[in-house]
């Protein structure tokens, strides 16, 4: 006899277990394949390996385990399984026949929810546990010692599955259509980052200086699958003699999401309790979600398709771009508004007076927001961070210059402010002229956020000569010897050791490649000549050629390049990595090769090359223009 206060129904649990066995069997198969089978399979290779030290063998085995665990805890796979499990156990809610039959049974919604919820969760956790257990046994049998990663992996998998499954159940409570669950779950998992990406691109089209680049932020946590895929990782460092495993990172992320899942369970249950069974078959089962759905779809559709549509046309001029963007965005917004309503009403008769007024309100609000962006009401164009909040700042025209130095930060801010103040002048110039230069400014703030701006500034000879112009100031920074040396050899170039090097190139029409190897001593001489040319200002013309789109210095730049091998025990801090922060993590490489171009102005380099016997005279060096014209002559002669 069942108790009246029962929360769990054995009969329903058994029904789930017997009816959805293919699901847990697939999850079980996957877990058995990933852990025990893969570990066993990998262990077979060691029988054929000889000459490995114990330490190397242990490191390789540890790598095997952590590689298997990385697949075992893959958020994308666990998300897919979780969604399927949630769909299965709550599938009765999405068909009026099954919903009516089940809810006419002598069982409360609380009992139904808890029983079905637990059934689905166990579909995931039990196979994961079996995978972990058999994986541990197989690992022990194959002589693996680092089983702690398996336990860690199991806990991670449980946490991730718990979150994604609860999330899918929560989503499922809002819809009345079974196959809307995976669609909504996927969309909501990427909604924040996806919309941010689209919105940033839209804003970049109409805002002065804003770039369409996506910057990670703390709010990315609102896109769980995206966030987890980045944060929950297994770390294997292949540098050195043998691989080093640094464990599984992202425990705090998984714990955070698991705690969120607890809250989601409560909300999912409350929604289930209040859910009307007559909504089975509706796209949205909870009526108050309808307006959010309509406006959300209209907003996302309008922004995405409006931004794409307006960018198809190569319109120049800020006002024209805004008009085109606003028109396309609002039209697409209205289209998506009614499309969403059609999905809600399962019909095409949606053009009622009420909806027309609502759509008008949406369009008006959206238009005001666009006007606000265009008119800088939100201050996004004039935003300059306070110096005390900046960790480091960089300006990139030909190459990135910057760092944590306060004076440098102030200089970059000064240029930035000047560019902001010259908005109208620069925008109208860029719309009508070709001789412009792209300037990227990036601030890494102490709170972890990044402020990035991209401008097109006029790059005329007059401005170059004017030290007070924005272009003149940027050019001055770009031609600073110290800044260029940091760019070529790394931020800590003063700690480097020069090894050997070589110079190579091609010889005019013959297209003959030549190479001259340099000893360490000669390489150092050439490096000193390079530094001397930099300090003498001989590189200025070459560096400026990289800054402007309207200038061409190929007629003085040589084809030949100087290649210098160098090393730094503490690791080479690449300037571009400091600027972008999206490349190699620490520790940095300890050795590298710098490739240095030079031109006719580099007198010190040329005289050193003659002194070292690399060339007999300056005439032996070929410029890019000479090589190109020779090549064209050869082609002409051939035909």
């Amino acid at each position: 006899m069942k108790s009246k206060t029962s929360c769990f129904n054995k009969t329903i649990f058994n029904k789930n277990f017997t009816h959805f066995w293919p699901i847990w069997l697939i999850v079980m198969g996957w877990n058995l394949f990933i852990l025990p089978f893969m570990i066993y399979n990998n262990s077979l290779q060691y029988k054929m390996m000889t000459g490995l030290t114990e330490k190397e063998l242990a490191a390789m085995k540890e790598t095997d385990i952590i590689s298997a665990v990385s697949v075992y805890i893959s958020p994308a796979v666990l998300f897919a399984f979780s969604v399927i499990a949630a769909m299965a156990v709550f599938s009765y809610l999405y068909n009026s026949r099954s919903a009516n039959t089940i809810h006419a049974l002598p069982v409360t919604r609380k009992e139904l929810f808890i029983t079905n919820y637990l059934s689905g969760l166990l579909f995931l956790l039990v196979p994961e546990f079996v995978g972990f257990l058999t994986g541990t046994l197989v690992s022990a049998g194959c002589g693996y010692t680092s089983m702690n990663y398996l336990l860690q992996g199991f806990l991670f998998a449980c946490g991730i599955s718990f979150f994604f499954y609860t999330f899918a159940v929560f989503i499922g409570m809002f819809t009345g259509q079974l196959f809307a669950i995976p669609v909504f779950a996927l969309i909501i998992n990427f909604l924040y980052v996806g919309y941010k990406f689209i919105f940033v691109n839209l804003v970049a089209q109409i805002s002065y200086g804003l770039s369409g680049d996506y910057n990670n932020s703390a709010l990315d946590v609102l896109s769980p699958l995206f966030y987890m895929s980045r944060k929950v990782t297994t770390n294997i460092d292949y540098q050195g003699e043998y691989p080093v495993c640094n464990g599984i990172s992202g425990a705090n992320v998984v714990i955070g999401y698991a705690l969120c899942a607890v809250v989601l369970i409560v909300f999912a249950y409350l929604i289930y309790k209040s859910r009307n069974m007559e909504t089975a078959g509706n796209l949205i089962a909870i009526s108050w979600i309808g307006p959010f759905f309509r406006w959300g779809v209209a907003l996302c559709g309008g922004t995405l398709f409006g931004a794409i549509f307006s960018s198809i046309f190569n319109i120049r001029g800020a006002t024209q771009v805004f008009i085109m963007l606003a028109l396309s965005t609002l039209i697409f917004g209205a289209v998506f508004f009614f499309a969403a309503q059609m999905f809600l009403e399962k019909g095409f008769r949606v053009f009622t007076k009420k909806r027309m007024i609502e759509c008008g309100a949406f369009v008006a609000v959206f238009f005001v927001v666009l006007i606000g962006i265009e008119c800088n009401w939100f201050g996004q164009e004039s935003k300059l961070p306070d110096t005390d909040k900046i960790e480091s700042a960089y300006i990139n025209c030909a190459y990135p210059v910057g760092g944590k130095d306060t004076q440098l930060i102030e200089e970059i801010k000064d240029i930035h402010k000047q560019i902001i103040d010259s908005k109208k002048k620069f925008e109208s110039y860029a719309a009508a002229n070709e001789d412009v230069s792209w300037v990227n400014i990036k601030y890494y703030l102490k709170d972890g956020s990044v402020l990035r701006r991209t401008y097109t500034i006029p790059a005329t000879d007059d401005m170059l000569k004017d030290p007070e112009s924005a272009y003149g100031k940027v050019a001055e920074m770009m031609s600073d010897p110290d800044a260029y040396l940091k760019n070529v050899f790394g931020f800590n170039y003063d700690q480097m050791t020069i090894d050997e090097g070589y110079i190579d190139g091609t010889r005019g029409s013959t297209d003959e490649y030549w190479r001259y190897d340099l000893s360490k001593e000669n390489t150092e001489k050439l490096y000193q000549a390079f530094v001397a040319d930099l300090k003498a200002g001989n590189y200025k013309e070459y560096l400026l050629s990289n800054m402007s789109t309207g200038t061409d210095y190929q007629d003085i730049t040589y084809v030949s390049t100087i290649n210098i091998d160098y090393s730094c025990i503490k690791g080479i801090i690449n300037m571009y990595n400091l600027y972008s922060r999206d490349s190699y993590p620490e520790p940095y490489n300890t050795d590298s090769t710098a490739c240095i171009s030079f031109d006719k102005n580099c007198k010190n380099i040329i005289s050193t090359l003659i002194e070292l016997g690399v060339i007999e005279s300056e005439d032996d060096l070929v410029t890019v223009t000479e090589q190109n014209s020779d090549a064209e002559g050869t082609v002409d002669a051939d035909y």
Partner: protein
Amino acid sequence: MIEVNNLVKEFDGFRALDGTDMHVKKGAIYGLVGPNGAGKSTLIRHLTGIYRQNEGTVKIAGEDVYENPHIKEKFAFIPDDIFYFMQADVMEMKRFYQGMYPKFDDKMFYRLMEYFPTINPKKSIRSLSKGMQKQVAFWLAICTRPELLILDEPVDGLDPVMRRQIWSIVMADVAERDTTVLVSSHNLRELEDVCDHVGIMHKGKVIIERSLSELQGSVCKIQVAFQAEMPKLPENFDVLHMSNTGRVYTLIVKGNPTEAKEQLEKMHPMLIDLLPLTLEEIFIYELGGVDYEVKDILF
């Protein structure tokens, strides 16, 4: 047994039940009739605790039904559109019902097996015909030993032999255990044979709720012929309908049939005969004045 008071249910602004009242006594066989869209199924879904009402009360055995498993154990519901789990056979559904209904009678299940010889209990129910699926539903429902059977269009899709058999099983249960039966149908002919009480639904309301004998005793059909023309009928003579073939008149009269006959006899007719009225005819004439889709009830 069932008490529904002022029940209101709205679907997106549409009022499907508009202050419905319904009362079913214990042991009654109550026929709920009405045209399509009258609200019969919606009312039944409230009685079975599937839907939650906007207003009003739905009580079975004196207790609210919604979210009340104690009450839900007491009734069995056979919907028009029956649901079975995918791949489930009769035995599996039996185990499920056995787990859900504490009073499930295992012996009865096997005893009733002989009444359904065409059903293979090991075959997936979904692969059976609609009629067979309905038979399975009755089989399982009876075995739960319900105090109340709620049937929505129960014998649709069954052949006449099986209809008779199903009803005989239900009637036997009623006779043996005083089971209350609520049966919804738009087929009056079917209900006439089995119901002792009838409720008529129209536009979300139960407009008439009476016992069948009460209904049949309140309207009668009289055939009468006079030498000359039809004399003027008395003031209190409530004729719902009158037609004639030559001198023979057919009157549908509201009121006590015997009293009506006596009054007509006082006019010295050549011929007078009191004829029985079918449930169909009662509804046609009783509801003739209401904006009511009689055809939907009858055909």
